[in-house]
Structures are given as structure tokens and as C-alpha cells.
């Protein structure tokens, strides 16, 4: 229903139906993520279009927030009752979900790039075998489903057996419930072996230097970007960090969050199953999408801007050859200590990267003005965390939320409500602070409104947005991140959006293309 109302506010076009995707006029996306039978227990996901740099990223993040918030009254009118949207990463039972960041970066150089590409070629036959096995199993399952439909229909037609029918059909989704687990097991059995090899290849070759250089930065970053959360009434710096179990996953089915998520590369290896061979070919590109799972959903615009801006800058530093970055012997242990209150270590690590950024700017022949602004803002924020944290109320989420919890929460239940309701779009506690002028605004509502219908001008989002507009009268169009399909899969026309990528990078210090999801 929310998607229907959004479609009355901006032009939209469907993506892949199975993923319930809705692409927006500005090139971004809304989707509804719900596993299997739990159709009513899903999440609204909003992804910005691809952006070039932190200013654009925060502009489009705010445009997404404002758009879904604008759609709420219409949705309530249609559904009745009460409805609110929380932009957060952790609920009262500790389930985690939400923000991810994606940055375009060099996957490898020299011998490691060769090894990555050779590994992808070597894995191609394994993936092909899994594809064929999947199709064979699916065909067999279709026959089983057909037989089950016939049996259930026969049972439904016999009134005396109604009780039996109710017993096996308790929530009106007998087949779905019955098949969900076996399908998941079969999928895992078929895909896990090749994916274990792919994940091993990722850990060995992909973003090798970048992951090594970024790790101490990412585990200390929550001191600026953390949204704060209560775990058993104890305050922790970051919603996502408390769920982190590893640096990078070893197999797909592993529980718990990873700091680096290679999911998008794994999905592209599965492209041939869906006759998307271009997705497989794209794995050979030098520049790929680095996906970061350790990321909180920020309400404070300053925190959100610094999150993307400092990360872009550190990626550029590492790609430009930074090797004297700090090293942390036990990064997950250090992360847990930082999240539980070891702020001094986090600040020291951040200051080390800040110093490297300053040296980088001094030595570079020319850097964009925004880089100097980012460094200044980063520096003053770290100073304030150390010496006057209360001045950052309204600017950093964890400091703001902690202040509200300490000043306004009496019982553990009240404190937890503050932790959660802080994140309500438009009506939450942070929104109240913002409305009262107690939180700096970097993107105005007018700017966000314009960005909800205008795409970024130098990324594939521009071509996607133009096609959404130009093909408004064409009946069968499927929009995707990498391609737009006109007509059916067989005989239809495919427009690759990568062909519209602006590959120019204006020297060192240019922020990377990034995409955020919340």
C-alpha cells in the first residue's frame, strides 16, 4: 500500500516482481523484504540512487526519507489505524536489519586482480553445475506442488473433511508453509558449496588492501556514526556493532553480521540461473561494489554526512597508496570494547586516519574543496567528543539518544521506548529536536523534494531515471540496477545501464560513487 501511495507522488516503475521492487523517478528504489511465508513481517527497504560523493549521497538519503514520510498519511487513509515508519537497525528483541553502504572501488590490482579473474573463471563450471541442478530440482518440485494442489483441492471439496483441511491449512498458506523449509534446504545444499569457494576467493583476492586499510577505521567509526542502542538496559554505541560476529563471512548461512558483505558479488555469480550473463561478466571489471554491513541508520544529518564523507576519503587514501594506517590485533574484540565505552581507543584510531588525510591533502597537487571541509568537520567533531560532547546533541545520534534516555527515561521500558521512537520518521523524538531547531540541517526539505524527482547527473541513475520517464507508456518494462528490460526475457530488449556510467575520476581525493540503503 505504501508503494501505491508513493507511486501517486513520483513516477515509479516495477523492478523484479519476486523482490517486490519499485524504482523511483530519481533512480532510487523502494522494496519490501520479507522471508518466505512471513509476508506480514517484512521491512520496507529504501535505497538511494548511485551518487558521486557524500553531498549527493546525503541529499538523496534525505529525499528517500522525506518521500516515504510524505506517503504515510495517504497510506493510513487507505489502511486505517495507526502507522509509523522507523528508520533503525535493531528492534526490542535484538533482531538486526537496516543500513548498508556501498562504495565503488578497485577490487584488486596487478597479480591479485589476475587471481580474482582466474578464480571467477575457475568457479564458472561449478556455478553452472549448481544452475543445472537447481533447474532439475525446481522442475521436480513443480510436479510435487501440482500433486499437492490437486490433493488440497480435493480435500477442500469434501465438507466432512473440513476439519482436516483446517488442521493442515491453519493460516491459509499451507503449500507455502509446507514448502518453505525444504526449498530453503535444497537451495542451501545446492548453492552453499560453490558459494563457500566464492567467499574464499573474496577473502583471498577481493578488496584485499582496502579491507585491511579500512578495518581499524570502520571499527572506530561508531564513535561518530553510531546510532546508540540499549542492550539489556545498558547503553551501547552502535545498533549494528552489537550484532557483528565476524569480519567477512565464511559461508552464506552463517548467523550474525559481517563487517564486509560480499553478497552482491555472490548474487552476480548466480546470474546465469536467471539468464543474466552480463551480471556474471561484470565480475571481471576492475571497479566493483564494496559492501559494508557495519553501518547504522542515522537520523542526525551531520552524523550521516560524516559517515559517508570520511569513508569516501579513507577509501581514496588507501587507493592512493596509504600503507601506514593503524593496525588492530584483535579487531572484533576491539570493536566490542569500543561499543561498550572504550571511546579513547576509537578517538585515537580516528585521529590517526585524520592525520593521514591531512598529509594526503597537503601533498596532493589539487583536491576538491569539499575534502578540506570534510577534514575540518571531522576534526572539530572528534575534539568535541573528547572535550564537550553535549555540544554534539542534535549532531551525533548516539550522544543525542543517550542524553534523551538519561534525562527522560525512568524505567527500563520507558528507556527502550526512547531508544526505538527516536528513529520514527517525522514523528519520532529526533524529528521533534529537528523541528525545534536543535539539530543542524544540511539538506533542506525543498532540496530533498527536488531530489525526489531528479536523479544524480553523472551516474547510471540518470539513464535509469530517463528510461522510467520515457517508457511510461510501454506496458512491459522491468527496471534493475544494472539493466532495463523491455519486453519478455526471451526476445525482449535489454539496455545495460553500465554503458551509461561516467567513468571519469577527477584525480585523487574525488569521492567514490556510493549507494546507501536503510
Amino acid at each position, binding site marked *: 500500500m505504501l508503494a501505491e501511495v508513493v507511486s501517486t507522488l513520483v513516477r515509479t516503475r516495477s523492478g523484479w516482481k519476486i523482490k517486490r521492487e519499485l524504482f523511483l523517478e530519481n533512480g532510487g528504489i523502494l522494496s519490501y*523484504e*520479507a*522471508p518466505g511465508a*512471513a509476508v506480514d*513481517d*517484512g*521491512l520496507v527497504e529504501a535505497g538511494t540512487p548511485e551518487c558521486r560523493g557524500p*553531498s*549527493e549521497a*546525503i*541529499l538523496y538519503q534525505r529525499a528517500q526519507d522525506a518521500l516515504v514520510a510524505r506517503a504515510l498519511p495517504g497510506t493510513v487513509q487507505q489502511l486505517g489505524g495507526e502507522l509509523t515508519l522507523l528508520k533503525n537497525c535493531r*528492534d*526490542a*528483541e535484538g*533482531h*538486526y*536489519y537496516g543500513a548498508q553502504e556501498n562504495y565503488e572501488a578497485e577490487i584488486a590490482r596487478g597479480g591479485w586482480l589476475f587471481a580474482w579473474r582466474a578464480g571467477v573463471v575457475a568457479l564458472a563450471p561449478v556455478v553452472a553445475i549448481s544452475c543445472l541442478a537447481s533447474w532439475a530440482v525446481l522442475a521436480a518440485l513443480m510436479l510435487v506442488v501440482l500433486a499437492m494442489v490437486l490433493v488440497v483441492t480435493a480435500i477442500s471439496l469434501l465438507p466432512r473433511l473440513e476439519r482436516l483441511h483446517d488442521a493442515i491449512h491453519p493460516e491459509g498458506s499451507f503449500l507455502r508453509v509446507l514448502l518453505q523449509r525444504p526449498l530453503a534446504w535444497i537451495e542451501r545444499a545446492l548453492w552453499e558449496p560453490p558459494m563457500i569457494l566464492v567467499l574464499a576467493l573474496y577473502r583471498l583476492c577481493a578488496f584485499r588492501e582496502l579491507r585491511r586499510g579500512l578495518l581499524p577505521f570502520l571499527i572506530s567509526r561508531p564513535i561518530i556514526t553510531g546510532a546508540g542502542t540499549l542492550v539489556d538496559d545498558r547503553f551501547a554505541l552502535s545498533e549494528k556493532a552489537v550484532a557483528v560476529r565476524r569480519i567477512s563471512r565464511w559461508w552464506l548461512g552463517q548467523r550474525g*553480521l559481517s563487517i564486509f558483505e560480499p553478497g552482491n558479488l555472490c548474487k552476480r555469480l548466480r546470474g546465469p540461473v536467471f539468464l543474466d550473463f552480463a551480471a556474471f561478466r561484470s565480475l571481471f571489471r576492475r571497479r566493483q561494489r564494496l559492501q559494508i554491513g557495519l553501518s547504522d541508520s542515522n537520523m542526525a544529518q*551531520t552524523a550521516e*554526512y560524516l559517515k559517508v564523507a570520511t569513508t569516501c576519503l579513507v577509501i581514496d587514501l588507501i587507493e592512493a597508496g596509504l600503507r601506514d594506517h593503524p593496525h588492530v590485533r584483535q579487531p572484533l574484540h576491539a570493536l566490542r570494547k569500543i561499543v561498550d565505552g572504550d571511546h579513547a581507543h576509537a578517538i585515537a584510531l580516528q585521529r590517526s586516519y585524520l592525520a593521514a588525510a591531512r598529509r594526503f591533502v597537503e601533498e596532493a597537487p589539487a583536491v576538491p574543496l*569539499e575534502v578540506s*571541509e570534510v577534514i575540518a*568537520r571531522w576534526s572539530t567533531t572528534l575534539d568535541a567528543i573528547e572535550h564537550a560532547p*553535549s*555540544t554534539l*546533541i*542534535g*549532531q551525533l545520534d548516539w550522544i543525542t539518544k543517550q542524553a*534523551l534516555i538519561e*534525562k*527522560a*527515561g*525512568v*524505567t527500563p*521500558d*520507558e*528507556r*527502550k*521506548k*526512547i531508544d*526505538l*521512537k527516536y528513529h520514527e520518521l517525522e514523528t519520532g*523524538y529526533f524529528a*521533534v*529536536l529537528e523541528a*525545534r*531547531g*536543535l539539530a*543542524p540541517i*544540511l*539538506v*533542506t526539505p*525543498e*532540496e530533498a523534494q*527536488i*531530489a525526489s524527482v*531528479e*536523479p*544524480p*547527473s553523472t551516474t547510471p541513475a540518470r539513464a535509469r531515471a530517463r528510461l522510467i520517464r520515457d517508457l511510461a507508456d510501454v506496458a512491459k518494462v522491468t527496471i534493475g540496477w544494472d539493466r532495463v528490460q523491455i519486453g519478455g526475457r526471451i526476445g525482449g530488449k535489454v539496455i545495460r545501464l553500465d554503458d551509461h556510467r561516467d567513468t571519469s575520476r577527477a584525480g585523487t581525493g574525488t569521492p567514490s560513487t556510493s549507494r546507501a540503503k536503510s
Partner: protein
Amino acid sequence: MSATPEPNLREPTPSDKIEREPLAEVVDAVRRDAQRSPKDYARETIVPEGGE
């Protein structure tokens, strides 16, 4: 030239600095609201199957 607006990334001005009275008013409002059915709120915002 793109029609996309450049975001207004200005430095916080003195008016952005936290003023004590408005903050105290917000804290009062949060305190009152947090007392209203906090357990229900927590329960209604659970994502039982949607988490990763």
C-alpha cells in the same frame, strides 16, 4: 547542467548551538510520551522474521 540542487552543507551557525530551554522542553515532552504504553510500543515495532 543538472537540475539537481547542490545540498546546502553549511557549517552549524550560532543559532544551531543547543539552547537549554528548548532542549528541556523537548526532554519533558519525550518523558511524557515515553510513559505511554512503552511495552506495547516495543512489541508493535518488533520485526520477527524480517531481521537478517
